[in-house]
């Protein structure tokens, strides 16, 4: 059952009604049952892995909290179990293939074993939740959850099961305990957030996907303008796709009275790469910061060690996104960006400090946004391309024959669609700028009800009329 289907809307409506009808004490049971039902509706066999991860993590956390000795060993067992589950199911064939290719370079025969494994939905997300929970219990950040049902709900909570946000356990359990409910506000706020998510995903991301797929799946046929168009489109596609999912998940949780962490803060308005990582997939980047970067020593180490830490974190982050070298290189590029940024930041500070001219500062700010966006764009090429070879082809050919290939764009995408996509992206841009400055919701609340209603109805109609309702999975759902 996709979050985008009519089936989900009906399912969700029923859950919301039951949820608010039953006593507060048992609402978590409704959420747990519906989460497992939601998960089973995708692939029933996947239930084994999420249940295993839940049970092992639950019991090991209890053991850790009760043990005076060997706590580290228990933690290692729990974390290793989740990592083995993740690596075994997601990366086994990738590593096997990579080993074979590596040995072939030295003409050594290496018999790789390939497993016929089904993709386990949401595995990258639920194993990371389980690992952060175990580490937090080990570091005594909080006590382990005694109620196994509530813990199972934390791991499987359906709005965020497929693609996050990777919620932290303490935040989640605290909210379950508090049970503060202003149903009316929750529902209205949640619906608005969901609506925005549907617009981003169904209307923009899925419409852009048609062109991006056409170009990136046949790159040998293109040079110049179509490659530029495809790369720009992908940058907006992946943002609208993933932010769209996050907003739907956050909105759905809000309707159920739970506040999930924000996952995006207008990332393409970032003025530097480190800022981008504070605004893009926040739940994952903060996870890597807390559970990998800081344990490695963070920035309280010598420059050489720090550089190594950054590279490790970004390589792992790249690999987390998918079992392919394209993702690893994407992560590596971002790691290099971070290192370069650190190296030049002192020089950059001097420039900024010497400037008091407001116009020049605004120009510098726009320039920094422009440069940061294009650095991100360069890295996205590796993220989207079907192979490393394809990425290199694109980089080599993206500026070749730009003017003579301009007309090719109209073979790929009709003029009407370009107008529509342009208008929608402009709408999103305006919303982002307003949100950055004053906050859209705050501003809307000050407008007359007629204006607000007209706007909501217009957005609903844009979704209904221009949504791509074929079942296009979310990009991050595949990770």
């Amino acid at each position, binding site marked *: 059952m996709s979050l985008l*289907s*009519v089936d989900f809307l009906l399912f969700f409506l029923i859950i919301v009604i039951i949820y608010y009808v039953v006593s507060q004490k048992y609402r978590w049971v409704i959420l747990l049952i519906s989460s497992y039902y939601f998960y089973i509706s995708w692939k029933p066999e996947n239930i084994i892995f999420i249940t295993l991860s839940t049970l092992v993590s639950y019991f090991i956390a209890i053991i850790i909290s009760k043990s005076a000795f060997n706590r580290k060993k228990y933690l290692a067992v729990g974390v290793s179990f989740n990592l083995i589950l993740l690596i075994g199911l997601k990366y086994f064939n990738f590593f096997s293939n990579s080993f074979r290719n590596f040995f072939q370079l030295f003409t050594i025969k290496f018999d790789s074993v390939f497993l016929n494994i089904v993709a386990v939905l949401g595995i990258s997300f639920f194993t990371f939740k389980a690992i952060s929970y175990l580490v937090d219990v080990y570091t005594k950040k909080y006590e382990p959850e005694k109620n196994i049902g509530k813990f199972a709900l934390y791991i499987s909570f359906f709005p965020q099961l497929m693609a996050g946000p990777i919620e932290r356990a303490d935040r989640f359990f605290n909210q379950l305990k508090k049970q503060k409910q202003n149903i009316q506000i929750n529902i209205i706020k949640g619906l608005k957030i969901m609506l925005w998510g549907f617009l981003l995903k169904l209307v923009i991301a899925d419409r852009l996907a048609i062109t991006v797929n056409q170009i990136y799946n*046949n790159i040998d046929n293109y040079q110049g303008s179509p490659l530029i168009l495809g790369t720009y489109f992908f940058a907006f596609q992946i943002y609208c796709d993933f932010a769209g999912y996050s907003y739907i998940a956050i909105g759905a949780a809000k309707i159920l009275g739970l506040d999930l962490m924000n996952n995006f803060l207008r990332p393409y308005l970032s003025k530097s790469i480190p800022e981008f990582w504070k605004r893009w997939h926040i739940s994952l980047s903060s996870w890597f910061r807390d559970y990998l970067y800081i344990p490695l020593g963070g920035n309280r180490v010598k420059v050489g060690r720090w550089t190594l830490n950054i590279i490790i974190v970004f390589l792992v982050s790249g690999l987390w996104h998918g079992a392919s070298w394209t993702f690893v290189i994407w992560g590596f590029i971002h790691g290099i960006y971070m290192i370069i940024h650190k190296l030049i930041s002192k020089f950059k500070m001097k420039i900024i400090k010497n400037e008091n001219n407001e116009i020049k500062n605004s120009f510098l700010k726009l320039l920094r946004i422009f440069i940061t966006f294009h650095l991100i764009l360069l890295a996205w090429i590796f993220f989207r391309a079907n192979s490393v070879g394809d990425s290199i082809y694109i980089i080599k050919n993206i500026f070749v024959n730009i003017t003579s290939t301009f007309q*090719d764009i109209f073979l790929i995408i009709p003029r009407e*669609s370009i107008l*529509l996509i342009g208008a929608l992206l402009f709408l999103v841009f305006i919303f982002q700028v307003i949100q950055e400055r004053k906050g859209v919701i705050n501003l809307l609340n000050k407008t007359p009800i007629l204006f607000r209603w007209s706007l909501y109805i217009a957005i609903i109609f844009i979704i209904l*009329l*221009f949504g791509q*309702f*074929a079942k296009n999975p979310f990009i991050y759902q595949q990770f």
Partner: protein
Amino acid sequence: MNKKATINYLIFLLILITLLILANYFYTAYVLTDTLLSRNEEQIEDNFRNTKILFSGGSHVMTGLSPDRIENSFNFSSLGENYAYTYYKLKYILESYDIRLNTLILPIDLQDFSSSRIKLIENEWHTNVWYWHKYINYENLKLIIKETSYLQWQTAKFFPVIGNGPSIIMKLRGSLINTDMKLGQQIRVNDFSKSDDQDKSAKFRAEWHLSNSETFDATMSDYFERILNLGKEYNLNILIVRFPVSEEYYKFSAEYLDIDEYYEKVYEITDKYDNIRILDYHDLFFDKDYFFNDPDHLNKNGADYLTDLIKKEIDM
């Protein structure tokens, strides 16, 4: 929830539903009627009683055969139509209409067995449910594409406006009806020989049809056989046609598949039937680009020329 707020939300919901019903009404009355599917549907209703020769298939058939040149014929094809849809349409009219068909014309072009034909349905099935639900029920659709939803099917059936915003824009821009339709044939009048960049558009079309797909998909061949069996059951003469394509298109298509091997597989199927004749016109217009609208669709002149040749075959 306070009373005033509840009333407000109910009013909002009421306005929304009313507007949706109105939009759906206007779409059905003023936009849908201009679409090719709707016009084809209207014309078959007017003509099925006299129809003895039926042209079925996708866009190559829809643009490439002129029913006005063969008595009692009708072009019952639609853009992007694959063998599965053709099978259900044919089955429906044979079983439900008082139609006396004796000849069926089917295409066997390079993209016809490609899995991209299924992808096309997967991407677009929900936008044309208002048309397809008559011919194919939900259970049968589910056999062709797995990712469907009964609720979505029903929603799309009753609210064709959903997902069809682009056709509203086309209607407003006056570009929804930019081609005539006569006895089901979409009449295209461009001259491909005057195209600025024939190679590029041919390459793009070949890529669109054949890249990233299985060129001989099992589901498509299964439905192809079902059509042939249906023809046998109803004693139809079946003419299977390799439609003319431009030389440029053919050249680029060869980059995606082994054409000889492809047709060996097709003929393995057709050899099992004795009510079939195969007409190979794929290179008929290799040096006559002016008969094409674009790299792989005939214009009206090309369609008339081809139809006259086929008429002779039918008369033989």
